[in-house]
């Protein structure tokens, strides 16, 4: 008899998302009836289809553009309704606190005066935007779209690793992975009470309408992209299509009399809300980096005049800073008077002498991260690092301690993953996406990223990561 999918699968000492979850019983039984050969065939078809559909990110080499798919693993990651309820409420709590924090630091700064967060951590942060001081935003919502990176330790506890409160990406893969699974594995999905991912676009545009400038009855929303050369261009296309709004670039927009217009075949046409996928620095050469070619001159004037809504707001990067992250449990208690539902990973803030000393003393056991980087760059994973890498890390820490945090090396949970024709355990994380207008809604599931290299803990797509469909089942 041909071996079936989970025969001989051994998650070793790690927490396995598939074997430990009671909610995965139906799926496990169905996978047991499927041969490895059949799984490989369906996986190959699915990945070929993703490529043809152009569900790709773009990389550049030798001035050529190469479209790559985010490698898609067809064995789903499964969460029970209870687990999801816990994650969802934890995320809503966290985003509520983040928005209160941002409103506070751009207004009265109680949180700094009350000594909850060191003022210099906020006020000297390169993502703190003084021009946001005193601007009142509808519903006090700064972070309309948030991606929260969550990991699971060897005991099965969910821990927040990072908040992505600027321009998080990946949601298009959540929806497209589901479409792919519906086509490739209809037999796995039958009657398991799977929560849909279909309505993300509708929820997103509703939230954007909610934060539109006051007094506009039929606001025009656009999605602002850096253009076809951006690696996340597919996602921009996806989101514009799902919302049914124009996908524009900076050169399509202009500001006159503090109002934003787009260039159309019939002349200039008003724009009221911009979901921007361009970082603050590049958004307006008049207000930020003068050499930016991607942005729109005068956008900040229109914004400050109240004629424009931006999602996310300007200056949210200060809230997802890795150093500010360390204070998030205290920030939640301060604003909400509640204990955090989702815990942080224990974090040592190297700007604090004691934490620096601890980090230097235990370098080989810790993960050291620069506070300002994204995409998994600049990280030193102590237990995996060579002696030389550790010494380089030590030198950087001593030279600029405030730029680093350290965390214990979490034994990330694993999920069965098809690699080179075999099903093996691979480490996963989870990035749920939350949308906030007047209130917060979380897309059930989220993006499960999987580190495809054996033993690797780095799940970023730029570093050999892939993705899985995430199933929240009843």
């Amino acid at each position, binding site marked *: 008899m041909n071996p079936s999918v989970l025969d001989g699968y051994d998650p070793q000492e790690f927490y396995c998302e598939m074997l430990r979850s009671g909610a995965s019983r139906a799926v496990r039984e169905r996978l047991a009836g499927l041969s490895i050969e059949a799984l490989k065939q369906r996986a190959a078809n699915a990945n070929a289809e993703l490529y043809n559909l152009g569900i790709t990110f773009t990389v550049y080499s030798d001035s050529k553009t190469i479209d790559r798919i985010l490698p898609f693993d067809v064995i789903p990651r499964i969460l029970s309704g209870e687990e999801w309820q816990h994650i969802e409420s934890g995320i809503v709590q966290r985003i509520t606190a983040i928005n209160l924090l941002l409103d506070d630091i751009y207004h009265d700064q109680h949180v700094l005066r009350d000594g909850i967060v060191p003022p210099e951590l906020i006020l000297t942060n390169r993502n703190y935007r003084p021009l946001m001081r005193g601007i009142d935003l509808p519903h006090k919502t700064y972070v309309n779209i948030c991606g929260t990176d969550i990991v699971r330790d060897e005991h099965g506890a969910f821990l927040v690793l990072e908040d992505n409160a600027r321009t998080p990406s990946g949601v298009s893969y959540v929806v497209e992975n589901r479409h792919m699974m519906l086509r490739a594995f209809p037999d796995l999905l039958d009657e398991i009470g799977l929560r849909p991912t279909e309505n993300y676009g509708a929820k997103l545009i509703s939230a954007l309408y909610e934060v539109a400038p006051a007094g506009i009855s039929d606001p025009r929303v656009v999605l602002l992209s850096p253009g076809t050369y951006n690696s996340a261009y597919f996602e921009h296309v996806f989101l514009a299509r799902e919302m049914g709004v124009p996908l524009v670039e900076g050169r399509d927009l202009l500001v006159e009399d503090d109002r934003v217009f*787009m260039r159309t*075949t*019939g002349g200039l046409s008003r724009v009221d809300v911009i979901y921007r996928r361009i970082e603050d620095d590049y958004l307006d050469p008049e207000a930020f980096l003068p050499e930016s070619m991607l942005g729109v001159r005068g956008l900040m004037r229109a914004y400050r005049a109240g004629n424009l809504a931006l999602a996310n707001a300007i200056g949210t990067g200060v809230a997802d800073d890795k150093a500010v992250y360390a204070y998030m449990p205290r920030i939640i208690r301060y604003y909400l008077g509640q204990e955090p539902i989702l815990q942080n990973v224990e974090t040592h803030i190297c700007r604090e002498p004691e934490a620096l000393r601890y980090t230097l003393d235990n370098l080989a056991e810790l993960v050291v991260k620069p506070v300002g980087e994204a995409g998994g760059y600049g990280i030193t994973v102590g237990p995996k690092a060579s002696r030389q890498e550790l010494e380089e890390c030590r030198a950087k820490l001593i030279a600029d301690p405030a730029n680093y945090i350290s965390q214990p090396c979490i034994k990330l949970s694993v999920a069965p993953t098809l690699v080179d024709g075999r099903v093996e355990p691979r480490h996963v994380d989870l990035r749920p996406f939350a949308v906030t207008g007047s209130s917060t809604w979380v897309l059930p599931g989220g993006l499960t990223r999987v580190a495809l290299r054996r033993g690797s803990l780095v799940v970023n797509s730029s570093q050999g990561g892939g993705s899985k469909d995430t199933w929240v089942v009843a």
Partner: protein
Amino acid sequence: MPDVLLARYADCIFWLARYIERAENLARILDVNETFSRDSRGGQNWRSIVQLNSDEERFFATHSTASVHSVVNFYVIDADNPTSIVSTIRYARENARTLRSLISTEMWVQLNIFYNRLVALRVADLAPGNLAPLFATVKEACQTHTGITEGTFFRDQGWYFYQLGRYIERADQTTRLLDIKYHLLLPSVSDVGSPTDLSQWDALLRSAAGYHAYRRLHAGTTTPARVAGFLLLNPAFPRSVHHCMREVGRLLGEVKSRYALRHGNDAAEELDRLQAVLGTLDISAILGAGLHEFLDSIQRQLIAITRELSTAFFGYTPEASQVQTARLQ
């Protein structure tokens, strides 16, 4: 808000259609030359195809002779040649990539697969026996694109600019096709009316997919004047300049009134001038004054129409030398 269209999108959709139409026509020309058009000694004139596209300088910079091998290579798989089929489809795909939020997924997928198939072609795929099926595949892929577009593309402003691009390019290609025979393959006096001369005119009709329709109108008689008249002026032939310009006129009028677009009157005036010429001259008058000169003047007027459309709707006025290609994205 389907009532507005970004100027940049209008530009891209116009050029998407033009590049597809251009690739299809290039496949037609290469196919016909490969299959049907031989001179009295059975030789094929590949040099004329290079001349047709005004590519002599670039072609002979890298090739010493215009053989079937070198010309087909140059025009099918040479990614460094901007007028090759693979380059043309690459430009079409780049425009489609920009338009992905506007066009249907099916349009994108088909073009994506088509392009990837072209990129994978190697010299061995261009062996003599493989050429006819290859050209048939290219033509069919272009027509599949057209069919998918017809069946899936939302009928808003973008649809109009797509069709405007398609008809302008098609008219332009028809004039070039006619020019190749009349100007470049000009037979010696003794060959006029010879079996070889006439078979070349038949080949021309075939390359424009007009052979059978022409036969229904002019059973048994192939004359240069009738073939030229058919390709230029026949109102029912979908590739005739006359038909294409009538469609352009209809589309331009409709898009302006339906979407209350204020600009575009200069393009309409240029078009009126061209249509007046097409409507009043008959083929003997055209031949009398010189067919090549006439085709040249049509091409110039198509360029003028394109420039006026760019100025009115796409938000920029191209340089005269750049009117035959899309603005670099």
